[in-house]
């Protein structure tokens, strides 16, 4: 399937997997981040159960320096 992550398309071999799996595949485990899927926030507590489908648009954000 293909996901749009932070505005860029990314193709995966599997047909569907969880947000938790995506976090692991992207080597973001243990990082403090927030994820939005198709405009809806996915709470961290739902990372394991929330399944991603082909075409889903994801925003993965973190805190950076700012004023």
């Amino acid at each position: 399937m293909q996901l749009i992550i932070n505005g860029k398309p990314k193709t995966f071999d599997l047909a569907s997997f969880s947000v938790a799996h995506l976090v692991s595949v992207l080597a973001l485990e243990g990082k403090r981040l927030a994820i939005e899927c198709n405009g809806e926030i996915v709470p961290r507590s739902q990372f394991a159960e929330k399944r991603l489908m082909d075409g889903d648009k994801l925003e993965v954000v973190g805190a950076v320096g700012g004023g």
Partner: protein
Amino acid sequence: MSDLLNIAGKTYQSRLLVGTGKYQDFAQTRAAIDASGAEIITVAIRRTNIGQNAGEPSLLDFLPPEEFTYLPNTAGCYSADDAVRTLRLARELLDGHKLVKLEVLGDPNTLYPNMIETIAAAKVLVKDGFDVMVYCSDDPIIAKQLEEIGCCAVMPLASLIGSGMGILNPWNLQIIIANANIPVLVDAGVGTASDAAIAMELGCQGVLMNTAIAAARDPVLMASAMKKAVEAGREAYLAGRMPKKLYSASPSSPSAGLIT
């Protein structure tokens, strides 16, 4: 002296709030913030780098959320919807954290706030349970409206973000302060220590700055200067300055007992 800053029911020793942007590296960010004594630090919310530099340190490694009160901002947002979306993500990112800095910009050249969009966002955020510290123009009517909406602090600009031009309209700031029942903090435009001291002497509850420290030749030393300026300005405000006498001098030494 027990003179604490109270924002949304929580008290702070320091009245200096600082940003975390524009530093050379995270080590310098940390050193400057330590020198500033700030307890509340602003952060921006941005897309995470995907697939690259996965192991590189992050801001949070140097400034653990357990040590500071994070103030996530909406810098770069030009609409109420974008600002609300950003802060909802920030709340999720920071485990339900409610204290936020709302700013909705109106123009990329001046970064002047769009107060119509800001007010719209403030209404949604307050209703959604956020404690909203709001960056705003120095218009006393707008500041009062933001208070009535339920914002926990108003933060009028001293001058444009990153300009270092200092306090351009102390008269408006004084009107805002006189009318406010919530803390008024100057946010943006402070250039050097005297600007911060003047803001506090006017009666501001605090000052928020980033570039004045980060863009100084020696940011850590400037952070220390700002800490002292905010403290000095606050004490001068509490002490109550002498009245200005425009047309007559008054000697400090006795007039009696002069050697003639």
